């Protein structure tokens, strides 16, 4: 897929575990894993907002477009 989700990088920077982030944003660890692995087909704005709030970052820090 052309859109890469750099969640691992932000989690490492914020020293947060995936389980913790999943609990904060209110999704299952399985869904977070789907997002991290690039298998997700779409992301809701509400989820993106929750992630950015939890990790104190911008959407561009998490989402990257590769040609």
């Amino acid at each position, binding site marked *: 897929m052309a859109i890469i989700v750099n969640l691992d990088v932000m989690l490492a920077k914020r020293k947060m575990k995936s389980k913790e982030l999943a609990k904060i944003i209110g*999704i299952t660890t399985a*869904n977070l894993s*789907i997002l991290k692995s690039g298998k*997700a*087909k*779409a*992301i*809701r704005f509400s989820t993106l907002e929750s992630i950015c709030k939890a990790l104190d970052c911008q959407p561009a820090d998490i989402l990257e477009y590769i040609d």
Partner: protein
Amino acid sequence: MKRIIAICAQAFFYVFSICFIFVFLFSILAFVEKNTGFDMPFVTILEANANFNAQVTIPFVNAVFSFNFSYTILFMWLWLLFYSIYFYTLKEFFKIFTSSDLFTDESLRKLTLFFRLNLIPLVINLLVALYISFTQKDESSEEEIIMIVIHCFIGIIVYLYVDVFKKGIQLQEENNLTI
């Protein structure tokens, strides 16, 4: 309402299955009695000729059925067996609509099987109707035409369901992968 329809389909399945087991079992007993001479329970051979007649007595209810056995019994077995399987898949088809997860691969498989089962009597009745119309001018093929129309109609409806379910599964998968 959906559950009632599923129960009706299940009832038809049990009726056809019981009829099949009854006819199959007693025709085998009659065949064995005629050929081996052993006295089989509930069965009495009435005439010993090429197309022998057998009488079956059901205990407790004191019902008596007479069968005229010939090789056409094989067609009766196949017909009863086919419609037992047909009503079983029909029951499974209706059960899909009572389950919580509608758009699954399992549901699509059951729908596709039911669609294919509708094609079998359609083709057979079409061949029989054509045979009757070309070879037996005095005979009418009304029954076959009615079966063709019924199975054609059901087949078309189920085909449309299969198409809708394929799109539904795609949408379901997309929805499941939307975080």
